[in-house]
Every structure is written in structure tokens, then in C-alpha cells.
């Protein structure tokens, strides 16, 4: 496979770009925010996305999906980064679909993957602290009769305020920091004992903090093997990190493009500010770094489709580099826009704010740098 996208993937990307521009632009995001919409995404838009097949992009055709590759999904995520579109594409259609596909049995796949493909929302509830740490699971699932009782809490569940089901990582054995003894459960959001509070983050999107107070689930809600949930979970989180990298790549490119356009139009000191060499060199340097990001993201996306043994390293490379460059490019964007960049009226700051949240999701720069070194034996 060459490091370029196929014609088919390009078509998907183009149609995503066109659709999002038309239907899910920044104006929509501002409207949802200013009206204090409780979910901060448009169900109508999400339904349309599902109808176009995006919700089932990576779901096998047998389960009602498109059977497309992750490279294709990456192109759509990149476009949602460009348009700052909020939707359950990341949480449900990428992350939960991946995990169900990896860990679910036949009947679970039939039931839940088809639901996702049709636009139902399933959210992964795996974070408990403020820093990404999938091994640290304190929420317990205790065997009781024919099922399990879940107790504990989960934080920062994406689209958790509106999800139909949660996939929950729970401690069934081992100490609270161990990768061993983690099991996965799929739980209906309206189960008795689950309470939710919403949190609005810097990017004006909403997620949920969940509390599980003796929530009873039957055995058929166990996803994959008992005590062995960490392996599919970790692989899913690698894929999640790559998905967020693709979105960050869109954010990076769009904020860079907008900054370059502004540099070509803004005048100060009787000159187009884009003619100042100091700004030119900073822009050119960012251009180079973005080229590197592009390569790391496509390589990582291909790594998913090829089931590469390098996937963990590719994920950490893509996420760490995209975090670093998103930070650079969005900060430079605001700085180069100057005062106007500080105002809410101008879009560039929205990219900075979404980037800062995406940077923290599924492992920040430091996490993935550390992990990359560990994976490489140093």
C-alpha cells in the first residue's frame, strides 16, 4: 500500500468535506453553543451522517456497516477536524464499534454493531482520573448470582450524556493498577443505579461523568473474556488515539490555512503582514511539521487496516506529534491573527480550544512520548 489514499477514499473525503461545509459548519457549532444545547451536536446532522453510512464506516457489512477501512474513516475524521463538527462519530462509530468488533461475540456484534451503524450511540466509559490511564480501573464488577454488580465511577465519557449504552471497563480481579483482571461490560444507559452529570469543556462540547451505584447486569453483557478485557481495550485506545490524531490533523491544516490566508490579507505598517520574513519563516517551519504529521497519520491509519504489529508505536507517534504541532499551529494562529484572534467572533480561537481538548483525549503528548520510549525498550 502506498502512503497515499485511494480514489475511493478521496471521494469519501471530498463528499465529507462538502457535506460538513453545507450542514455542519462552525455556524452550527456556535448556534448549539449559544443556545446552550445540552448535547452540543445536531441529531439531525448525525442522522444524516448515519444515513450516508458514516456511522457504519468501519463496521463489517455483515453487521449492517459499510465494511470500509480505517483509512477512509480517518479522512472523515480529518474533515470533522477542519469543520469543528461535533458528533458521535469518534465516540460511537469509531471507538465503540472497534471495541465491539474486537471483543464482542456473534450475538453482541449483531445487536450492537447494527445499532451503531444505524446511528444509535454507544460510548466507551474507561477514564476514571484526570490523566489517561486505562490500567487504573477502580470501578468494580462483582459476581452476583447470574450476573454482575457494578460500582464506581467513570469520567469524561464522550457523548455519555446522550448515549444509549456504555461500554464500561471494570475491575473483576487484580489490584487497581493492573492490566490483568479488567473486564468489559456493555450496559444500557437507563439501567437502574446509573447517574450522570454533564460537563462542558473548553471546546464547548459536552461529556458525562457517570456514577454506578450497584448497577446489575446479566452475564450476556460481559464483552469478551472475563478478566481479559485489557487487550482489546488497549488496542481500541490505540485506534482511538489515531482517530483523534486524524481529527487533530484536520484542525492543524485548517487553522494553518486560515492563518496563511490572513497573513496574505492583513496590512500593518503599509505592508501585507505575510511579507514579513520572520512570520514567513515561522509559517514555513509549520508547513514542514505539518507534512510530518500527515505522514504519521496516514501511516498509523494504514497500520490499523494492515493489523500491523507496530500499531502501538504508530499510534503513539501519530498522537504525540499531532498534539505537539496542534499546540504550535493553533497558538501561532491566534498570535498571527493578533487582537482579532483573541475575540470570540473570529474562528481561529475555536480551533485552539478544540485542539487543547483533543490533545488530552486518550493520552496527551507526554503520555505517548513516554509510551513510545517504553515500546522501543528505553
Amino acid at each position, binding site marked *: 500500500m502506498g502512503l497515499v489514499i485511494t480514489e475511493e477514499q478521496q471521494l469519501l473525503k471530498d463528499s465529507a468535506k462538502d457535506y460538513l461545509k453545507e450542514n455542519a459548519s462552525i455556524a452550527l457549532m456556535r448556534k448549539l453553543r449559544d443556545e446552550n444545547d445540552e448535547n452540543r451536536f445536531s441529531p439531525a446532522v448525525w442522522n444524516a451522517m448515519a444515513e450516508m453510512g458514516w456511522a457504519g464506516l468501519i463496521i463489517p457489512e455483515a453487521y449492517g456497516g459499510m465494511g470500509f477501512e480505517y483509512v477512509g474513516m480517518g479522512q472523515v475524521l480529518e474533515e470533522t477536524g477542519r469543520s469543528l463538527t461535533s458528533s458521535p462519530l469518534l465516540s460511537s462509530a469509531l471507538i465503540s464499534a472497534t471495541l465491539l468488533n474486537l471483543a464482542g461475540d456473534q450475538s453482541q456484534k449483531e445487536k450492537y454493531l447494527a445499532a451503531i451503524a444505524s446511528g444509535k450511540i454507544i460510548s466507551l466509559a474507561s477514564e476514571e482520573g484526570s490523566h489517561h490511564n486505562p490500567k487504573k480501573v477502580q470501578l468494580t464488577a462483582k459476581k452476583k448470582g447470574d450476573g454482575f454488580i457494578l460500582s464506581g465511577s467513570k469520567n469524561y465519557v464522550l457523548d455519555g450524556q446522550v448515549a444509549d449504552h456504555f461500554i464500561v471497563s471494570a475491575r473483576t480481579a487484580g489490584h487497581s493498577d493492573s492490566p490483568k483482571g479488567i473486564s468489559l461490560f456493555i450496559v444500557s444507559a437507563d439501567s437502574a443505579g446509573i447517574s450522570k452529570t454533564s460537563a462542558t469543556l*473548553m471546546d464547548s462540547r459536552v461529556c458525562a461523568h457517570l456514577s454506578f451505584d450497584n448497577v446489575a447486569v446479566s452475564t450476556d453483557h460481559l464483552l469478551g473474556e472475563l478478566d481479559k478485557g485489557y487487550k482489546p481495550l488497549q488496542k481500541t485506545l490505540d485506534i482511538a488515539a489515531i482517530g483523534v490524531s486524524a481529527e487533530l490533523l484536520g484542525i492543524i491544516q485548517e487553522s494553518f490555512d486560515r492563518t496563511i490566508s490572513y497573513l496574505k490579507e492583513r496590512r500593518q505598517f503599509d505592508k501585507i503582514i505575510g511579507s514579513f520574513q520572520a512570520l514567513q519563516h515561522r509559517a514555513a517551519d509549520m508547513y514542514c511539521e505539518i507534512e510530518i504529521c500527515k505522514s504519521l497519520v496516514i501511516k498509523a491509519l494504514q497500520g490499523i487496516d494492515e493489523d500491523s504489529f507496530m500499531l502501538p508505536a504508530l499510534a503513539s507517534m501519530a498522537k504525540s506529534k499531532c498534539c505537539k504541532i496542534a499546540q504550535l499551529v493553533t497558538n501561532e494562529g491566534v498570535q498571527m491573527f493578533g487582537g482579532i484572534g483573541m475575540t470570540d467572533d473570529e474562528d481561529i480561537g475555536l480551533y485552539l480550544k478544540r485542539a487543547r481538548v483533543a490533545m488530552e483525549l486518550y493520552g496527551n503528548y507526554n503520555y505517548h512520548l513516554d509510551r513510545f520510549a517504553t515500546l522501543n525498550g528505553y
Partner: protein
Amino acid sequence: MSALESFKKEVGEFLDQNCPESMRQPMKSEDDAYWGGRNGSFKNDDQKSWFEAMAAKGWTTPEWPAEYGGGGLSKDEARILKKEMAKRNCRTPLLSFGIWMLGPALLKFGSEEQKHQYLPDIINGKIRWCQGYSEPNAGSDLASLATSATTVGDNYIVNGQKVWTSYADQSDMIFALTRTSGEGKKQQGISFLLVDMAAEGVSTRPIKLISGKSPFCETFFDNVKVPKANLVGAEGGGWSVAKYLLTHEREMIGETTDPSAMIPLNVSAKKDIGMNADGKLADPVMRKEVAEWEIDGAGFLFTIARLKDEMKAGQPIGAKSSFLKYYGTELNKKKYELHLTNKGLDSLGWDGEQYEEGKLARMFCRTKGNSIEGGTSEVQLNIISKRILELPSE
């Protein structure tokens, strides 16, 4: 007892008697400040009595001449007053751009009539002032401002738009730079006008920042009539007045540190990230970043101290204020980046009690403006390369 010693005693007694207990604590929020003005109101009686006691002595402006209602104190006396107030944690009785900015300019450039007309109202907090400098197309390049003031009889007719006018929506008057001539160099033809915000044709609109609400406004002038008597300095001489004020402002900013700057990064890192068994921060990358920042931060504080010592030894600070502005604001931005990384997802909450209404996240966003307002980092680097390094222009 020397004259200064007896002055010190007198001040101490005055403060002890007149500064209520509640006015001897740090302000908890912006709400606790008194800005005066036609619509200004006191938060409580303590605030009112403290302000009035100080204004009566002219000590809202200790060094301004007594003939305009100022304190008329000597430098030494003013220093004593400042020290005695600090000793007792006395709050500043009146915050005012009139005191910080317009006053000094009027004292230097204003006519005798203007001084008599405006200074007393500043000292007594009767009129609240705002500053009208920047425009949408005149930011870093302030001199290219376009708000016009055209002579019609004894008046100027002002048209145009200002941005970044802090508290314009709460102010009574604005001191504004306007263009009275398009001829010659653009620095020429700029005039410094005093405009009543209640005049017909003046309107304001608050500016929302990426961090949320802000004191900044846009101010619009639509055929606003301004008497020629409101011109400060010569017509076309406004640039000198502006430069005088800007230098003043830049030095102030160089010294500003926000109160939360006081939480050391390593403390938040230890708390939010935790320590390994070997006593090291659990995130080794963060450990490096924090150490680098703290070394730079300490180096910066030492440098401020060194430059002060050098000034005492007779070396003027000159363009080094640009270095302080540049380095200090970049450090501050960096610090908030690190604070957010320390705190992780919990740093990103935007509202709600759990997140203190997004205090940290909003501060982070707000710091992005540090390297833009008061002269961008790029402008400071230009100044350093031209005025300190003496590198040639093209």
C-alpha cells in the same frame, strides 16, 4: 523628629483612623474595586468612607499638585504614604485610567484650563475615563489609525471606530487618538481629543474574548460633535502624547503579575500528577518541562531585580522594557500550558462548580492575549533588534 518622620506619624494615624478593617484585605474579585464615575456606586459604606477620606486629602493622587486637588506630596512623602498603606494592606481607594493614563498626559501636555477642568474630577472619582487608541486596522501599527476629526466651526466632527477600549460601556469620557489630517507622515496629523461618551453618535459594544466576557469594548463614533477646546496639545501633535502614554503603559505591563502566578508549577505538578516511589514526579517529561520553566522563571525574576539595581546604578532601562514585556508574557503563556497539562482533563472544564466556572481554562485562553496586547511579541523583537542590537532596517 524630622519633617518626614512627623509626616509618617501623621499618615499612620490618618490611616489607622480612616481605613476600615474591611478595606485592609486584598480584593477578592474585580467587584471589590471602586472605579468612580457618573454611574459609579459604592459596594458598601466602608468602601465609601475610605474613598472619601482619601479623596478629601487628594491622596487618590498623592503627587499631583494641590492646586488641582491632588495630594501635593513630595516624592519622599508619597513613598512614605505608599509604604504605610502597604504595611496596613490598605486597598487602593480608586482605580482609574484617569489617574494612570490621562492625568499624567494632561499634566504634561494639557492647557491650564484643561487641567483645572479635568484633574479635580479624576481625583474625586467623578468622571470615569477610558482610552481610545487601537482600531480594527491599526493594531501594532497604531499610527495608521483612521478615525477622523474634521473641523466644522468651533467643533470637530468625529467619525470612526475604536477597539479594545476597556470599560467603554461604563465610562463617562474617552481620550481618543483621531486623524485631523491625512497629509505627510502618518504619525503627523494625529490629534488627541477628549470626547464625552454621552454625546450624540457615540455607541459601544462589548467584546467577547475566547476566554469569555471581557472589559473590552468597541466604540463607534458617528458624526460626534467635539468642541475644539477638548484638543490636548497641538492639532496634529497627538502622536507625542500617545507615545508618552504608551511608554508608561509598557513599563506597567512589564511589572504586572497576576495573583494566581503565585502557585508554583511544581506544586501543582506534584499535586495533580503525583510522585513515583523514588521521589520524582510521575511524569518524567513534565518533570523536565517544569524544571526548565522554573529555571527560566527564576532567571526572569533575578533579571528584573538586576535591571532595577542597574537603574539605581544609573543605567537607564530604555528598550530593555521590550525584553521584559516579551519574555515575561511568553513565560506566562508557557506556564499556563504547563498548568493545563499538569491538571489534565480536569483543567478543561468551562463552567459549573466542579470547575470553578472554568477559571483555569479561561485564564489559559486569556494568557494568549498577553503577547498581543500592549505591543505584540513581534513588535518587541523588532524594537530589541533595532534599538538594542542596532540591526539595520532594510
